[in-house]
């Protein structure tokens, strides 16, 4: 049984922005993303796991995996509630540059907007 569940950020127009990012990935990256989320979902404690990093900016965290020498960094926050991680933005990183470049700011902005009723979170079935 999964210990954690993941949620995707949906825009005000109810578009799943994480699924939109996911669907543009190549097939191996999609499979690796699914497997990475699955492996995180069964781990009680993510501290020390290579697939996860707490970035320290307003509680912002990123999920990390590499496929074909490309580093992928979907970012989000813990919550709502316990054992839930919400993904606000899909991104990749080359050296120190994110793609999209404002990925981390975008995640924070979306989370702040959600608090004001802009957008929503929906369960992601792994």
């Amino acid at each position, binding site marked *: *049984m*999964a*210990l954690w569940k993941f949620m995707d950020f949906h825009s005000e127009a109810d578009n799943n922005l994480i699924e939109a990012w996911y669907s543009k990935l190549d*097939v*191996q990256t*999609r*499979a*690796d993303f*699914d*497997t*990475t989320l*699955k*492996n995180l979902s*069964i*781990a*009680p404690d993510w501290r020390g*796991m*290579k*697939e996860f990093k707490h970035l320290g900016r307003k509680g912002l965290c990123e999920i990390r*995996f*590499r496929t074909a020498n490309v580093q992928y960094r979907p970012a989000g926050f813990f919550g709502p509630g316990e054992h839930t991680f919400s993904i606000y933005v899909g991104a990749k990183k080359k050296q120190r540059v994110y793609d999209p470049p404002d990925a981390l700011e975008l995640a924070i902005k979306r989370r702040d907007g959600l608090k004001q009723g802009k957008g929503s979170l929906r369960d992601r*079935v*792994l």
Partner: protein
Amino acid sequence: MTVFSKIWEKLQDKAYREAFVASQLKRGLPTQLRVMLKDRHWTQGDLAQRSGLKQGAISRASDPDYGNLTINTILKIASGFDVAYVGRFVPFSDLARWYSDLSESALSVSSFSDESGFIQPRYPQVSVASESARSSLYSPAVMSKTDDPRLTDLTTNRVGGGMTLMRFQQTARCNAAGGIPKREPMVERTPLAPNRRGSVAENSTATGITPSLVPRSSASVISIKSGTARYRKGTITKSSGGRLRHA
């Protein structure tokens, strides 16, 4: 949508299927390795020492992004944990089911020494305990109850406790021999001997019933024609009242 139906939907795409298998293999093994290290409270160095590998090799094996482990390295790691590693081809439905039901406990594996303490052989030898259980099942106390001739019902061939007479005899024979009674047919067919008139008479002992316990009338009947029954000695005819009369 369930986890299984979701992954099954994705597996409809052959390219995704291939990628998913690779991902499960390359990322699943480091995940399990990490779980097993945590279960044992081992460091990567502890496993390296037991596996005959460098700590760097264990570090790479624990990295879900590495993906270039050789079978020899995997076997050495399995040896370090004292567990088996089985690589086999499976249908995608098995993989999807495994993926759907995945949990950390499913990845925990006991070492051989941990499991050998309580795993029984698949086909156990007859032990002292089972001999004892068998003895109590056919104990003298049980047999003395069923051995009482007063409990024998000749009409139904049943003895005390609802056991058929034949079954009782089999049990008694087997008990005397000290063995577990084998299942036998309720009626043992023996060759039938022809009588003088060409008809056959069944040997009463063939039914397993002791002759002395069998009613005389049924034991001596050799043939029955319409209205007349022939016995070894004398003839019995049907009277006008419908009763049988011995001549």
